[in-house]
């Protein structure tokens, strides 16, 4: 029997070339392979988060996945109202019997691109531009720094956050300016975890002839040859798996907290012909080794969120 799944994007919208788009890709893949239609909605203000979920639930859509931690409170409320409907939320934890909370080990993926950055850098300085200043993004930054240092212990990591509100996800100009100041302080590789703001980061890097690193989706194609790689956060996998589970179990997925990392192949680095020329064999070897080590658990990347500290200043 078919399910009719639904997905609620966050403010960035389905085509943000990043986080939400990755979710969109997953949903698309699912409906292509199974031929099952899905409903989706881009929320426009906070009042609508709950409204959208509720609206879907009432129309009998099930399961419903909410993309982004800002949905947490809404999911909490609505999931309680509709105990027979399955919900999932990405990037946050909602402790209810009918909610699956999906978290990613962004620090692991960031670690890998950190290695690549350090090795690609000639100046020995690499940059990081975060979006909104929240633990999640600090985890990116911290993992990136650890990776970079692991590849070159006296690499310098310069970093900045764009802002402290959701607006920070959507300010390419500011991203560009921050990148330029990183570059002027010597960075020749800049990694962004800043959603729409990142567009400006990669643009500035490309304009200045240095390397950028994309995030979430594979952004290598935005400026072929100028994007070293992208830290993949496979929200698409999460969405795809969630819908598939629901289909197999007939809408009765097992819930609780799911943490996806390298081992699950849910984070990683983008390797395609857009950046093939930029990744030397030596780099590829190094990053693959690290990946295995992390997957097998012999290397543990510190997660900023565990204690709000980072081993690297």
């Amino acid at each position, binding site marked *: 029997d078919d399910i009719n799944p639904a997905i609620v994007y966050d403010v960035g919208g389905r085509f*943000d*070339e990043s986080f939400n788009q990755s979710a969109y890709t997953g949903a698309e893949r699912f409906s292509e392979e199974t031929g099952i239609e899905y409903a989706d909605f881009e929320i426009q203000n906070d009042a609508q988060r709950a409204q959208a979920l509720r609206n879907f639930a009432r129309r009998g859509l099930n399961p419903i996945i909410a993309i982004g931690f800002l949905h947490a409170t809404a999911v909490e409320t609505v999931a309680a109202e509709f105990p027979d409907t399955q919900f999932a939320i990405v990037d946050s934890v909602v402790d209810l019997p009918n909610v699956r909370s999906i978290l990613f080990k962004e620090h692991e993926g960031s670690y890998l691109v950190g290695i690549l950055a350090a090795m690609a850098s000639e100046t020995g300085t690499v940059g990081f531009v975060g979006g909104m*200043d929240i633990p999640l993004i600090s985890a990116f930054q911290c993992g990136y720094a650890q990776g970079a240092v692991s590849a070159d212990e006296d690499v310098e990591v310069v970093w900045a956050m764009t802002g402290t509100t959701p*607006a920070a996800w959507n300010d*390419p100009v500011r991203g560009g*300016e921050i990148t330029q*100041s990183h570059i002027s302080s010597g960075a020749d590789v800049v990694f962004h975890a800043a959603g*729409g703001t990142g567009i400006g980061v990669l643009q500035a890097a490309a304009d200045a002839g240095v390397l950028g690193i994309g995030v979430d989706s594979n952004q290598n194609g935005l400026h072929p040859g100028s994007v070293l790689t992208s830290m993949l956060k496979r929200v698409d996998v999460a969405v795809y798996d969630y819908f598939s589970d629901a289909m197999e179990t007939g809408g009765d997925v097992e819930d609780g907290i799911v943490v996806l990392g390298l081992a699950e192949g849910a984070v990683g680095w983008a390797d395609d012909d857009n950046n093939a020329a930029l990744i030397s064999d030596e780099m590829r070897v190094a990053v693959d080794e690290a990946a295995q080590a992390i997957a097998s658990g012999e290397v543990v990347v510190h997660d900023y969120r565990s204690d709000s500290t980072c081993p690297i200043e």
Partner: protein
Amino acid sequence: MESFQSFILLLDSTVRLSMPLLFAALAGLYSERSGIFDIGLEGKMLAAAFAAAAIGAVTGNVWLGLGAAILVSVLLALVHGFACITARGNQIVSGVAINFLAAGLTALIGHAYFQRGGRTPGLDDEARFTPITWLGAESLQDVPIIGPIYFDLISGHNLLVYIGFLAVPVTWFVVFRTRFGLRLRAVGENPAAVDTAGISVTLMRYQAVIICGMLCGLAGAYLSTAQSASFVPNMSAGKGFIALAALIFAKWKPVPVLYACLLFGFLEALGIVLQGRDLPLIGEVPVQIVQALPYILTVVLLAGFIGRADPPKAGGVPYVKER
């Protein structure tokens, strides 16, 4: 030396960030000098930014993009003009409407056409205003002091930046040395006097808002095709209002407008640099304070040091002969 270099870079970033403010503020100057208040600078800028990026993306031609930006912005200006001059509507409200319209339509159309949630595709260099490196900038680059100043600060900006700086003296001349300027100032102070002098108040004001539209067009084009390489929904992010502040801050005078815009640009640049930084002694500055500084400063200066900034006397009121 190090700090000098970074200071130069701060100024450099200041120049880049104050440009949209400068264009918009000058735009506002023409409109408000003619007695038409315009808080729709923001919206016109946004619409223009979209037009420039969209047309640029489709045609791959920066000039077509610029043309489209100016066209769209002038159209919105004419809507404002029609509402305020012909229909004698409330100018503030019309401005608010323009802002809503632009915010909605740009994203709506952008989404309908490009399917990127309102974004436009990234522009390649032919569709953008790219930095112009001046004669011998490279060779001078390493000369101490002047080197950085010439290379970073003076050279290496895009065409619009230089146009922007040029627009200031031009505006000054137009407003204070030409017949048009005389009538412009008069119609903003006492339209009845202009009318009885046999000049059409309506025509004067329409001319003013059209010029305002053109300059907002430049501001928008700068945002999406010079400062960045694509349109992002709501990318004007309040710049139109800072420009307005700068205009009032400068008491509706061209040259002071330049200084005001540079000041606010500088603060924005500073905010970016200070974001999350720990300063010696002070410790971490809450970025919100830095971000709010332009507004706080405007308020403080308006209130305290520069006292009353008198807008054009007839500003904000439609010209009505017959009660």
